[in-house]
Each structure stands twice: as structure tokens, then as C-alpha cells.
């Protein structure tokens, strides 16, 4: 499975001219000359005379390297290569040989982009490996994007979060350059970075009208007040991802205020720093306000807690739609989930321990009427209860990913029989997930 290249999506975003129009243009232009060309036996000059719109369209299908080769062919093709439309999007890949197997964007290319195309860039992302060097290089480039009016910015660590290793001031000043100059940032992904409250203020001061998406999970220097400022001012915010410690009743109310657009999705990571950590609770009324304001919004929660840290959670109704338990979660908590999560669409449990989850699953099937995806890792469920669960959910279960070891055969069903039963109720062939044994 290769990483799919952007080819397929290219065709959706071609500029004003449709291909057929451009072709007509070519035919018209070269029509009179065609006979002469045929007579001379040389078609070389035609290639150089292709209209720029057509070249642009073709170049958009080419990966960058091929485009670069093409640009060396002749002056017109070189000009086409530098057309602004081809430089709207760029992904800087910053990797060091010592810390990554992947190649990096060539430094000369980076220089060229900054020199000739920084004011064309609109959708930019940085993919950095685990070395501090790569993250610093990203910051250096950011600092130079002074003429940029970015719409989208993504800072993505592909391995360990190396932006956290960069001196905070260096990072903040680089980011601030973008915030100040862009003025129309719509989408910002800064997870795992040392962004802080003051820089968020700068973001808000310059981009409050346009900001629609903000992903900032695991940004330890931001406080609840900092994010509240964003919610208060950026009324167009539709997608937000952050850690639980930034969540507050005030934040939810700000997101549900009249001036605020409907929220589409809220992603919350609940991560335990130290065992026995205490987490604050969010009032049911705040969640209710959210649901009233944005009835269709999705609440995605990823939990990485020790089993005994779930005290504050799931004691009251919560509008969560996608739930992931990355560590072992107790039977009791899953029972509470069944009771208090009526909007649940997806439930993924990494591990539970060795007590069967029969009752809990049945309860979830009963109360979570929107559930269409469930994944169970290191858990135990008796085959009968599992069949009952599937029967109750029926065909709405489009994703059913159960590790083979989860299912415990009982007097009613053996492992070999169960997949037929389940397939029957699902309306498609189903098998549990397997792991190699040898």
C-alpha cells in the first residue's frame, strides 16, 4: 500500500478553465500552423507554445519532482512551473538522516519557495521528524513567511513531538509572524507545541473572523483562560481539539453563545500525567447548552487514564459521540457509559481485563441507539451475550472490530459458529480480528 499521491484530488481543484476549454484553445491556436508544422516534420515548437492554463492543469497532476524536471525543459515550461496557482499548497518535509528514514524537502527548494513564492502560499504544513533540528528548521521557515497570507497552517510531528524541544521563545516568535501576517487563517493545527496564552491572543487579534478549525491537543503552556479567549472572539470556530484540562464550563458556554456558529466537532484528549491525578467535572448544564446550540455536533473523547481515575466521568449524561479508551477501563465505567451516553456513535475499548462485559454491552446496545461502530481489544465477552448485542444493534453496526480472543465460547456458541450468527444479523460476512499465532 503506497501512500496515495494527490493525483486524485487534483482534478477537483483545477482552476477556472476546464480541460476541454483549454484543449479547444490549443486547437484554435495551432490550427493554422498545423499544416506548416506537419510539413516541417517538427512538433517541438508546439510543446513550448501550449497555453499556460493547459500547462498549469497538467502540472497540477505531476508530483513536485516531476514538475521540477519539466520546468527545466524550456523557458515557458519554467514560467509555468512558477505560476502562483502551483504554489498555493506546500508541505515542507523536514527530516534528518540520523532520526528518520524519510527524505526531506531539498534546502534549495525551500530557499526558492521563500524567495519567489512565499506570497503565493496559502495552505502550508510542516512535517517534522523527532529531531529538534527539524522542528527548528520549521520555525526558521515560518519566521520568513512574512509576505504570506496563510489560510491553513499545520505543524505535524511524525514521530516524537519535537516542537516541544525548541526553545519556547523561538517557537512563539515564529508562530506569531504567521498570525500577524496572515489575517485570514481559517485552519490551524498546532498539537504538541509550546504555544501559549499570549500567542493565542495574537492569533485572535488578527484572525478572529476567519478561524474555523483549531487543533491544539497537548499544548501544556495554554491555560483555560487562553482558550476561552479564542472561543469568545472567534465566533466562526467549528472544530476544536484540546486536552481536558483546558475544558471548562465557561468554554462550553462561550461556544454555545448566540453569536457563535454551530460547532461541528469537539475533540478532547483526557491524559493522565501522574497516577491518581484528579480531574475536574463539567456540569451537565454546560453540555446541554452545547447540544441545544449545536444539535448535530460530534464530541470525540480519547481517554488515557489509569483505571481508578475515572471517578469524575460518566456520572451524568454527556453528549459524547466517539469514545476511545486507550488504556484499561473498568467494567463499572463501561456500565456508566451505557447509561449516560445516548448519542454514542463509536466505542473503542483497548482493554478491560478479565471479567466478561456481557451486561455492559447489552446495556449499550439498548441505550446507545446511534451506535454504529465498536472495537474491543483485550476484553472478554461471552459468545451468547455478543450475539445478543449484535442482534439488538442489527445492521446499523457498520464497524465491528473484535479481537478473536475477546469471544468466550459457551454452551450456546463455539467460536466457529459465532461468526455465522453474527454475519446473519449484520447482513454481511463477518469474522473477528485475528492475530498471528505460531
Amino acid at each position, binding site marked *: 500500500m503506497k501512500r496515495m499521491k494527490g493525483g486524485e484530488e487534483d482534478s477537483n481543484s483545477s482552476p477556472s478553465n476546464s480541460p476541454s476549454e483549454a484543449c479547444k484553445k490549443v486547437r484554435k491556436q495551432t490550427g493554422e500552423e498545423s499544416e506548416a508544422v506537419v510539413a516541417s516534420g517538427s512538433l517541438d515548437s508546439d510543446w513550448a507554445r501550449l497555453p499556460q492554463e493547459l500547462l498549469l492543469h497538467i502540472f497540477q497532476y505531476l508530483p513536485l519532482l516531476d514538475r521540477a524536471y519539466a520546468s527545466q525543459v524550456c523557458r515557458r515550461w519554467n514560467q509555468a512551473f512558477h505560476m502562483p496557482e502551483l504554489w498555493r499548497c506546500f508541505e*515542507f518535509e523536514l527530516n534528518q538522516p540520523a532520526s528518520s528514514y524519510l527524505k526531506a524537502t531539498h534546502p534549495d527548494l525551500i530557499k526558492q519557495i521563500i524567495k519567489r513564492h512565499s506570497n503565493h502560499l496559502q495552505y502550508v504544513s510542516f512535517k517534522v521528524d523527532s529531531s529538534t533540528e527539524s522542528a527548528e528548521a520549521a520555525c526558521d521557515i515560518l519566521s520568513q513567511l512574512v509576505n504570506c497570507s496563510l489560510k491553513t497552517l499545520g505543524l505535524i510531528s511524525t514521530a516524537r513531538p519535537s516542537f516541544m524541544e525548541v526553545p519556547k521563545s523561538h517557537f512563539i516568535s515564529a508562530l506569531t509572524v504567521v498570525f500577524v501576517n496572515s489575517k485570514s487563517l481559517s485552519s490551524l493545527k498546532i498539537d504538541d507545541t509550546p504555544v501559549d496564552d499570549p500567542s493565542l491572543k495574537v492569533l485572535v487579534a488578527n484572525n478572529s473572523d476567519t478561524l474555523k478549525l483549531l487543533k491544539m491537543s497537548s499544548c501544556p503552556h495554554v491555560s483555560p483562560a487562553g482558550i476561552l479567549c479564542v472561543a469568545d472572539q472567534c465566533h466562526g470556530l467549528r472544530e476544536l481539539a484540546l486536552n481536558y484540562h483546558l475544558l471548562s464550563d465557561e468554554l462550553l458556554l462561550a461556544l454555545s453563545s448566540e453569536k457563535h456558529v454551530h460547532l461541528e466537532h469537539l475533540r478532547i484528549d483526557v491524559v493522565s500525567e501522574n497516577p491518581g491525578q484528579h480531574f475536574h467535572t463539567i456540569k451537565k448544564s454546560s453540555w446541554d447548552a452545547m447540544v441545544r446550540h449545536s444539535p448535530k455536533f460530534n464530541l470525540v473523547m480519547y481517554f488515557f487514564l489509569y483505571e481508578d481515575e475515572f471517578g469524575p466521568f460518566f456520572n451524568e449524561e454527556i453528549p459524547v459521540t466517539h469514545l476511545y479508551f486507550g488504556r484499561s477501563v473498568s467494567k463499572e465505567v463501561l456500565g456508566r457509559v451505557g447509561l449516560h451516553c445516548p448519542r454514542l456513535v463509536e466505542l473503542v475499548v483497548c*482493554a478491560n481485563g478479565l471479567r466478561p462485559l456481557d451486561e455492559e454491552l447489552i446495556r449499550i446496545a439498548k441505550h446507545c441507539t446511534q451506535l454504529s461502530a465498536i472495537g474491543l481489544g483485550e476484553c472478554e465477552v461471552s459468545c451468547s451475550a455478543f450475539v445478543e448485542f449484535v442482534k439488538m444493534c442489527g445492521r446499523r453496526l457498520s464497524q465491528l472490530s473484535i479481537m478473536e480472543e475477546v469471544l468466550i465460547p459457551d454452551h450456546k456458541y463455539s467460536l466457529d459458529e459465532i461468526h455465522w450468527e453474527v454475519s446473519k444479523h449484520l447482513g454481511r460476512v463477518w469474522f473477528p480480528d485475528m492475530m498471528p499465532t505460531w
Partner: protein
Amino acid sequence: CFTSSPPPPPKKLCDMVVNTIHWFRKGLRLHDNPSLRDSIRGADSLRCVYILDPWFAGSSNVGINRWRFLLHCLEDLDNSLRKLNSRLYVIRGQPTDVFPRLFKEWQINRLSYEYDSEPFGKERDAAIQKLACEAGVEVMVQVSHTLYNLVKIIELNDGHPPLTYKRFQALINRMDAVELPAETITLEVIRNCATPISEDHDDKFGVPSLEELGKFLFLFFIRFETEGLTTAIWPGGETEALMRLERHLERKAWVANFERPRMNANSLLASPTGLSPYLRFGCLSCRLFYFRLTDLYRKVKKNNSPPLSLYGQLLWREFFYTTATNNSCFDKMEGNPVCVQIPWDRNPEALAKWAEGQTGFPWIDAIMTQLRQEGWIHHLARHAVACFLTRGDLWISWEEGMKVFEELLIDVDWSVNAGSWMWLSCSSFFQQFFHCYCPVGFGRRTDPNGDYIRRYLPILRGFPAKYIYDPWNAPEEVQKAAKCIIGVHYPKPMVNHAEASRVNIERMKQIYQQLSSYRGLGLLATVPVHINNGGNGKRVDAGTRQGSAGSCETPSIQEGMSSAGT
């Protein structure tokens, strides 16, 4: 000059003397060895040869436990051949050098060996076949290391290897029955065939001792330490293998339960009925095992159609052989059409800590210690350490883990090792990646008392069960009482698991979202569904999962994001 399936006619077509060599590589046994049996028919002389080739793929990465196991196998083979008035000839060198010499010296006109489906094996054998043809030597090859002829499985799948285990099972259901094991080579079978054993056979062709082998390999910069070596937990050889088979079946019959056994603390320890290394070296025929299992099931369950799950162990092995056989890049990420390109971290220090059992997580370290000492660990233990190294915690490439396993494990070969690592790191085969094995919890649930830890990490013996899986959480008094201060006598945990798994699940999600072009919020739907019959994953169906608000950023962030500078 190449024959495959049908055995040669028993009568000699002319009065020519037939001198044959049987070349042992895997298939180190005299039972179910059809190529050897064919070789003997109508032959006047037989020499069974094993070639010690230090240059062969992966030889430089063989640990001492595997060498020792191999030598036991060779000794056992030699002993069995002795009973048939024959001997094993162990020859050092490369086959392309050795065979022309032997063909001439021994006036060989027939060569037999068991089919090797692995890409490097096929390459090596093609070269030998060419040499044989040039020397007028008839070559006899038979499939007996796998249940089926893998080529036929691939043919059944329109010429492509199946990319999911489910697809593979469906194909198996359609294949013809597994061929019966060939009859064992006995004195009767071999009666017309002599082995001209010389007086100096032991000096020239005897099975080397471990020390002698060490000296030989040292010349090729391969070294291992024989000092302090404990008794082999896994004694090699066909005799041992057959004994274990009986015990294995006895135990199954006694339990009368053919379901997968529940994992408990005992399962982690080497079992006297464990068969995987014997299958890997071919001391035990997989077909024999298959048929014995079938017979037992039919007898005990009074049921004539055993489910596929009965042969789980054998079929997984078969699956990986099948997916690997036509792919010489199977053990790499780059250039491997079935492998997802994941931006793994390059981190030699972290890798070393994992390999040496110094991660600070007792569960992981105990497993790696058992692996290094004994050469075998339970498959769930493999899952735990493989997950920890790759997608779970360290985010290091599965290729690195594969190399360590290649060195230390005695029961995996190229195909099975690479395939398993790709599977466990969610790099292939359309696996869900959400289930992460916790390096604390998983161990604790398997062996609550912690005896496994105490056995392999004696330094932690003093810790009570409550803290033995996460000793860094133990209060100072407990550590002092255990005479083991974390950070001093035993390392601190090298990662924060919650943090690492949070980061990593996000990474996997990013990668798979790019692959499947899935824009929704579900975690499970991120993994593409492989609907194609045989293709190599190009046709990927992300499906239209339940409508959830996709990202409002323009899709063009993906366009033109093709790898810069690749």
C-alpha cells in the same frame, strides 16, 4: 533435466549407475521427505548433504541458540542415517562452489531437495539448477515444507497473493486436500542404495560442535559467545520433534478441547509440547502434524469436518509463506508493495534498550530476557514487545525488531518473521490499530503474581505483586525492602506510556487517513477495507462511513502534498 511432481519409474531405463545427492536445507527429517524418497528410487548411491553457507541471506544474524538448535538437528539426522547405513555430509562453503566440485568428485547424476518458497531460496536454487543442468544432473524437487503448493494458492487468487488472512482462509477452503505425508525412509526403502562412507568421514564431513562452528564462522566475522551457555531448553532434531508431537496430541486429547487455550502464567514458559521450532527447521513435517490433528479431532469429537481454526498455527505459517514467496522486498518497508510507509523514528539507543531488556518496564524486559536466553517466547509475548517497539510506545521501525527476532528466535524464518512484524506493527494486511498492549496492564492480567518477572529478572524478586509491573510507582520503603532502587539497580521507565500511546495513535490515524482518504471522525473506519479479490491494496474502499462532519479545511491541503524531494 528438471522433474517436479511425479516420482521416477522404479525400473531403471538403462544400466546407468545413478549417484544421487540429497541436499538438506530445511526438511531436516526422514519422515515425509518426498524429494529424498524420489531420489533414492533407482539410485545406486546416496549421499545426504548439508551445506554450511555463511554467506546465505541472514546468516550473519543468527544467534547462538539457533546455531545450536541446527547442530542438534544435524546430529540427529546423522544418527538416524547411521541406522540406515548412511551418514550426513556437512560441507562448508557456498552451494555454487560446492556442487560443481561434488558433481565431479562423486560422479553425481541426480540431485534432490525440498522446495524452498522464499525469494532468496528460489534464487539460490535457480542457480544450482542451472549448474546441475550444465553437468547433466537430474534435479528432483518436491513441496513438503508447506501444506500446499503455494503457487497453486496464488493461482487460485488470480495470480496475486492474498492480502488478508480471511481471504487466505477462503482460498484454502477451495484448495484440493492436503497431500498425504510420504513414507518414512527406512532400511527397506533404502535397501538398494549405498553410501560409500570413507574412514575419515568424521574429519571431513562430520557435524561440527558448537565451538568448531564458532571458529569457522569467526572467519566470516560472525561471532557468538559460548561461555556461560545454559542447557538448551529446546533440543533440536527429528527424534525430539516426533516425541513432542505425540505429547502434544496426548495433551490435546486429554483436554478434549480444541479451542484456543486460555492464556495463563504457565503459557509464557517453554512448553515440552511446543512444536514451532521443529516446524521451522522441518524436523517435524507440517503435513504429518496436520493429519495427526485431523485424525485426533475426528476421533475425540466424533466429527468428520474439523474447522479451519484447528490448524491455526499451521495456516498462519502458510499464509506468510504465501504472501512472501514472490516478494523479495517483503522484509522491508521501502519498495514493498504490501507495506504501509510509516514515518518511523530512527533511534539506536532506544532500540538497544528494547533489545537488551533495559526498557524499565519489567514485563517487556522479562520477555526480551527470556527471548535472549532461550530462543522462544509465547506469541502473545511477541505481540507485547512488538507493539511496544513500534506503534505502541517507541515508534521504531518494525524492520529493526525483525532483525532482533531473526537473531534470537529459533522458530521463525524470513517470511514468517517479516510478515508477523508487519502485522503486529499494523504496517500491512489491513489491520485495525486501536488495540495497544499496555506494557504494565497486559502483563499484570496475564500473570497477576509476577512469577514470570521474578524468574527472568531476579533483581526485581523482592517486589510484591502490587508493584512488580510498575516498580517506579512503589514507595521508597518498598524499593528499599526489595533491595532494588529504581533508577539505580533497575532502569526507570524509558517512556510515559499514556503519553506515548496518545501520540502514536494519532500518528497511525494520520497515516491511515491519508491512505484511505477517510475524512470522518471514526477511528475504526480509518482503516481501509480490502474488498479486492487479489489486488495489492491499490483499490481501497474507504466506504462512506456514518456521516460525521468532516474537516472544514479545504481538501486541497492534500493536493500537491506529494512528497517533496523524493
